[in-house]
């Protein structure tokens, strides 16, 4: 069973996942951020692989990625960092990056490293379903990896049903037609969309992300899904207040 499926067996309401960028604010902060998030009882963690041209990301994550790359982060360093906490870290990790990073590293080599680090779930926002069907499904199956698909307000019902049939960890419900970044309140239009997805009675668990930023948006989104992902708002806080203040950011959201 996949690590995220196991997690859902223990808890399937009000899950909080945090996205962070490896090597940010400092090169060696990757494992420190994970440790702090674990201590704050975050349910699972999205480990962001900094990319030079992240098309699905807004200014905050572009900026943290840029800084991390300037710090000298790269995939080999990230895999080494993750290896050092493999035995101690108990919070499930999900790797999030762009397809070209895997392609250039070597698809098999990349998958093997991910598995070696004790990670079994990946999110690649620019991996389209047709490529998954034609090639990547077999690759991921070979390594026991699970791919998370994203759906949006514009994804058709037929396509959502198909994605549901391919999903083993969860479906990533993109909260609005948007790139990553904090947006403020959740609109009525978004609620209508969340309800529509919820009422489809999919077999997959649903996690809402993009634009979730605080207690209020977390609580609202959790009414329509099993949990949410916070990214940009967390990174902004991390950049401004540092690792020591991670708990101050998380606690008000989940308490």
């Amino acid at each position, binding site marked *: 069973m996949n690590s995220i499926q196991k997690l859902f067996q223990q808890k399937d309401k009000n899950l909080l996942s945090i996205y962070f960028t490896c090597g940010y604010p400092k090169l060696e902060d990757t494992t420190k951020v994970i440790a702090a998030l674990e201590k704050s009882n975050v349910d699972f963690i999205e480990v962001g692989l900094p990319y030079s*041209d992240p*098309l699905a990301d807004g200014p905050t994550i572009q900026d943290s990625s840029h800084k991390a790359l300037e710090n000298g982060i*790269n995939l080999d360093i990230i895999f080494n960092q993750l290896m050092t906490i493999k035995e101690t870290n108990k919070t499930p990790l999900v790797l999030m990056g*762009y397809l*070209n*990073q895997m392609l*250039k590293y070597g698809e098999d080599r990349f998958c093997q490293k991910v598995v070696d680090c004790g990670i079994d779930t990946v999110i690649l926002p*620019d991996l*389209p379903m047709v490529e998954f069907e034609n090639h990547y499904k077999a690759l991921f199956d070979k390594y026991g990896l699970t791919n998370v698909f994203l759906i949006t307000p514009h994804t058709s019902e037929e396509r959502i049903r198909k994605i549901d049939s391919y999903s083993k960890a969860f479906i990533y419900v993109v909260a609005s037609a948007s*790139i990553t970044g904090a947006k403020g309140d959740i609109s009525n239009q978004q609620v209508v969309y969340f309800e529509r997805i919820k009422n489809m009675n999919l077999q997959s668990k649903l996690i809402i992300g993009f634009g979730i930023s605080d207690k209020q948006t977390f609580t609202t989104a959790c009414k329509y899904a099993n949990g949410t992902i916070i990214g940009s708002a967390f990174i902004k806080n991390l950049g401004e207040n540092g690792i020591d203040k991670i708990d101050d950011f998380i606690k008000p959201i989940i308490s």
Partner: protein
Amino acid sequence: MKSKFHPDENGYFGQYGGAFIPELLYPNVKELADNYVQIIESEEFQKEYKSLLKEYVGRPTPLYLAKRLSEKYGAHIYLKREDLCHTGAHKVNNTVGQILIAQKLGKTKIIAETGAGQHGVATATVCALMGLDCTIFMGEKDIVRQAPNVARMKMLGAKVVPAISGSKTLKDATNEAIRYWIQHPETFYLIGSVVGPAPHPDMVARLQAIISEEMKWQLKEKTGKENPDTIIACVGGGSNAAGAFYHYLDDEDVELIAVEAAGLGVDSGESAATSQLGQVGIIHGSKTILMQDEYGQIVEPYSISAGLDYPGVGPLHAFLYETKRAKYMNATDQEALDAAFELTKIEGIIPALETAHALAVLSKIKFRKDQVVVVNLSGRGDKDLETYINHLKE
């Protein structure tokens, strides 16, 4: 028989192409993929497109035998005068076609990226013509080095949004255009070259194919034969080259030469010669040849020419390079400048800096006396006058 140079049903030219896009763009790209061939091949579209090309753009563009240039290089050198198109470059062939497609799909808001500003101007122009809302993304660095085109876009009523990330050039303008498109899926992304997710590369190639369509009958008139021996064109994303090559791709006796920007030299670390410096990778939704480091991070390119300053090439070009159907050469900043001055002095034509790269390889090729060579003169140099004037002073 279907040409091997046409994409398959998933938009692949060999191993290159595809549509590597975030899910949010899927409905837009699918809508276009399902409709573009049918629209382009429809009688109604062809009538409107051809009529606009004739009456508004000023086509056919002349195929001019450059006598003094021919004498100098010992061949019959023809210039396909895309510089005489309305707005000063081949880019308008594509924007006229895409604006008609956008209208057929009921889109009223247009976005585009631009490097040299030629595509931005050509887009702003057709938007003015059709009364459509127009937003152009342009790298901050390019806004400075192509100032006349920025002024033209604004006068034409377009909103020009500076791209301030990365190298602040064409790649970053394209990133920003795609990010905006994700957030405004009701807009039509009028892409400027044979790049981007399928079907954009094929759609743009079909719309630029008018260049080689005309070349065929013009050459027949002038030389008695439809086929030249050699076609030379510069490559940024590769649209003017794709258009100049298009109807000759299956005629293997026609030599195709694509010229990339070497910047300060291919191995100088300041270059945009993608085929020489790149490996298989994904950029702007397409699998192609890409300048990147060992971890797949995109390397910032460099060229004096904003229109060639791009770390990838369209997937068709990656395929032409891999299959050796076309030969990929390159020219440095200095070689391009020298070629621009040469053409100006001996033929009285000031070419765009991009185009000057194509002209620069004439001195590197050994021609037969009777060799028929067509150089695609993709654009005129008005926008580059400041660079040229600075160069004159040196």
